[in-house]
């Protein structure tokens, strides 16, 4: 299935883009999506287990993805 991953702030900078299209197996998890993102050029500058949100909520690495999900890789937040 196709999933779009959103990238922000320093992660978008090091990966040189603010979104990436992933081709994933139907039973793919957050960890599978992350593995593809970390394999991109610049991905080695991300931490090994960055925070991820699925459909606007923080999600665990074993969270099962579904077609149409919005996934986002979340750099350390710095609000306030």
């Amino acid at each position: 299935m196709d999933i779009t991953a959103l990238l922000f702030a320093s992660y978008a900078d090091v990966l040189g883009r603010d979104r990436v299209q992933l081709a994933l197996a139907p039973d793919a998890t957050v960890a599978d999506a992350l593995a593809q993102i970390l394999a991109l050029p610049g991905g080695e500058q991300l931490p090994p287990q960055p925070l991820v949100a699925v459909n606007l909520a923080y999600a665990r690495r074993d969270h099962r993805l579904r077609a149409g999900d919005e996934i986002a890789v979340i750099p350390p937040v710095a609000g306030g």
Partner: protein
Amino acid sequence: MRGALTREPLDPQRILAEVADAACGALILFVGTVRDMNDGRAVTGMEYSAYEAMAEREMTLIAAETGERFGTAHVVIEHRLGALALGDASVAIAVAHPHRAEAYGASRYAIEQLKQRVPVWKREHYADGTREWVDPTRAHQEVLP
């Protein structure tokens, strides 16, 4: 009870008026502003961005959680995005409660949760012309022995 992002200057007076209630004897307003110094470097400005849909969702959740935990319906959280100058308000949290102990607790809870959970990022601009994403987790690690 409300959490929202805005690109306009924050209006603490309006946010305070929004939570005011005749049953609530204690109002607390927290305002976070852009400081002129961070980690010993002279800051000249700050640029805020967010995963906007998620940030508004988290802020709304935090307002609701704060209200439930401390027993009040009067919680407003606003965060500004865009380019801010020194002294500009980046976040404002207003809470009203019948009693002050709970009002302080609620105010503190809301800002701590915001700083932990809300996907907002800031890039500091320094006097030497460079700019850098602020990473609170890194600053924290450096403090550890």
